[in-house]
């Protein structure tokens, strides 16, 4: 009797728990749904971003090269004035003849054909003849890119169906392009030039090599400054500095510095490094110095948290056998913190790689048609290159902007992978 009555009078533990169970499960399901939704949205944005850049930029990596036999006419090229000859016109005239067209007296036809052939071919003839005078009077074969607008036509970005007045090339020029291709003088292939050449005013001759080298040199300066200084500063603050009001003040300031807008660092660099210390503007050195200032707080914070994560038992163990504080830190604590330090350092370098604003302040926004001449020479870096091309008026720079972004992203992915690999490598040692 009592046994049966009790549960109804007072619900059992099981009943109490079960009554709430449904709500608890629902809560969990809801949370999981939110989490998945957030991830899907993030992935979607990423896919749209990368997809758009790839769709816009992949055509850069295809390029059409003209292979033309050029007769170096002694009547037009004089040995004593090699640079005075108009090689572009020479090539255009001969190509016109090859196409079976006749030039008028004003030279309109050859002028129109010149718009299809990159000035790169003319330069090549000049270089070859300069190197070997005996080539005058002979026929040499020159390979170089089709001019940007012609490339656009071959890639299908300029269409015949567009009204003639609204495109850069008229119907006759398009017909010539078709005939050049039909004659087998034009070949499409991978655009190695984009990776082996530097910036140029001619889109078909512009490449990212100068920017890649500039970025690499700048990062080298940044890394060799920010990492040792940052790691040592963090180690001192965390392991040696007496804790008190001063160390708190320093900590707050470092945390604040990490949040200072990057353009402010640019102003600082302009005032201190360029105006006061006289470091050459627009150079990888000054860029690296500014980036090092910017990366320093991040490196310090990452290192400090990595040091904090090292279990105190290791410190006690080392001190217990009579290691000095310095030995404890450098033999045991810092090596254990290394994976965290490395990750923080590389991520802050990756951040520095993508930073543009402070570089604009220190004059890195200049047209640099070559690989930087040393650490004090003029240089450009990848994000600034993107910025410059984005502002260019030629239609052909649009795809190059996207392609430069792709190169920049690849650079960053490589760095992040290096961070992960280093982390794994260091962790495996322990």
């Amino acid at each position: 009797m009592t046994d049966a009555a009790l549960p109804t009078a007072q619900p059992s533990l099981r009943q109490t728990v079960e009554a709430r169970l449904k709500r608890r499960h629902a809560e969990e399901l809801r949370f999981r749904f939110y989490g998945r939704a957030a991830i899907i949205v993030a992935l979607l944005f990423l896919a749209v971003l990368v997809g758009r850049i790839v769709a816009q930029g992949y055509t850069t990596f295809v390029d059409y090269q003209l292979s033309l036999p050029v007769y170096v006419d002694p009547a037009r090229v004089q040995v004593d004035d090699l640079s005075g000859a108009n090689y572009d016109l020479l090539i255009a005239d001969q190509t016109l003849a090859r196409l079976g067209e006749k030039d008028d007296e004003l030279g309109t036809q050859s002028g129109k054909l010149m718009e299809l052939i990159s000035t790169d071919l003319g330069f090549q003839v000049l270089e070859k003849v300069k190197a070997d005078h005996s080539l005058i009077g002979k026929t040499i074969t020159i390979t170089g890119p089709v001019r940007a607008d012609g490339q656009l036509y071959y890639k299908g970005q300029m269409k015949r169906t567009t009204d003639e007045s609204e495109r850069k090339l008229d119907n006759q020029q398009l017909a010539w392009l078709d005939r050049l291709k039909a004659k087998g003088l034009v070949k499409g292939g991978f655009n190695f030039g984009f990776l082996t050449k530097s910036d140029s005013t001619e889109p078909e001759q512009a490449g990212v090599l100068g920017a890649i080298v500039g970025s690499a040199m700048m990062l080298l300066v940044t890394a060799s400054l920010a990492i040792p200084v940052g790691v040592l500063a963090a180690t001192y603050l965390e392991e040696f500095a007496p804790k008190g009001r001063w160390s708190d003040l320093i900590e707050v300031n470092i945390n604040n510095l990490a949040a200072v807008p990057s353009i402010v660092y640019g102003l600082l660099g302009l005032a201190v490094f360029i105006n006061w210390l006289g470091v050459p503007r627009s150079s990888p050195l000054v860029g690296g110095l500014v980036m090092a200032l910017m990366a320093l707080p991040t490196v310090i914070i990452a290192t400090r948290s990595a040091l904090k994560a090292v279990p105190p038992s290791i410190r006690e163990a080392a001190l217990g056998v009579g290691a000095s504080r310095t030995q404890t830190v450098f033999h045991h604590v810092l090596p254990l913190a290394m994976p965290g330090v490395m990750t923080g350092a590389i991520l802050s370098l990756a951040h520095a790689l993508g930073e543009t604003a402070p570089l604009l302040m220190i004059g890195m926004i200049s047209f640099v048609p070559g690989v930087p001449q040393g650490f004090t020479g003029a240089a450009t870096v990848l994000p600034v290159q993107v910025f410059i091309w984005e502002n260019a008026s030629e239609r052909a720079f649009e795809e190059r902007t996207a392609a430069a972004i792709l190169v920049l992203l690849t650079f960053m992915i490589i760095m992040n992978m290096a961070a992960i690999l280093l982390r794994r490598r260091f962790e495996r040692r322990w």
Partner: protein
Amino acid sequence: MNQRQFNQPLRHRDDEGAAAPAVHIAVDRGHSADKSAAIKIRARDVNVFYGDKQALFDVGLDVPERAVTALIGPSGCGKSTFLRCINRMNDTIPGCTVRGRIELDGEDVNDRSIDPVVLRARVGMVFQKPNPFPKTIFENVAYGPRIHGLATGKAELEAIVESSLKRAGLWAEVADRLHQPGTGLSGGQQQRLVIARAIAVSPEVILMDEPCSALDPIATAKIEELIDELRNQYCIVIVTHSMAQAARVSQKTAFFHLGKLVEAGPTGEIFTNPRDSRTQDYITGRFG
């Protein structure tokens, strides 16, 4: 073993008590049946503060040479704090101040002329949780001799490592894997590795802070056996929560309560005939 310890020292208890100086060590009834046994560590009026909080009150204790001294007492009674005063590990705790005199062979360890590095080479320490360096077994043991420059060559270093591991009773188990990580050993093996690491520096004193609290009974038995062997060469001070362990391994026992040294004396006496009622209550399991 237990029998011997419980029975033997009783005879001399009264003599010892009478001989004890009244002021400082009124509670310390000496350490052994043999009055001539040398005192290795002499602590007087030791007061320790963590910030404003006082953790130890006027502790005075004599620690005998070549014997095991056990510090017992409930959690938070200051026994670990006292232990850490001996090799100045408390220096590393911010806000911790130590007052009083702790003599190692008659020399004050807190004296300015004493470098903690030298002190800690002379006074080794084994911690509660086994804390081998995340390096190879060899490197763990070789670290101390290396930083102190105790070995002149590779062969000598290897000899030190081997003898230390042998004395810690670990050699047979790790001889074929000296170059594997020390963290891959079992808990008990790790603790013996840590003891080998301490021995490798040839210390005079070994401090052990609850060395068996993280170990299973079999590993504990091995460590206790090891402690019993080591006491022939070293002065050992061990903090333990286990009264059975204190009774098994130590020759002298000191009972701490609320930061004060309540009673100290030969282990047998403390366990069979405590003078203070608090000691009586603690060892009979009424509190703590």
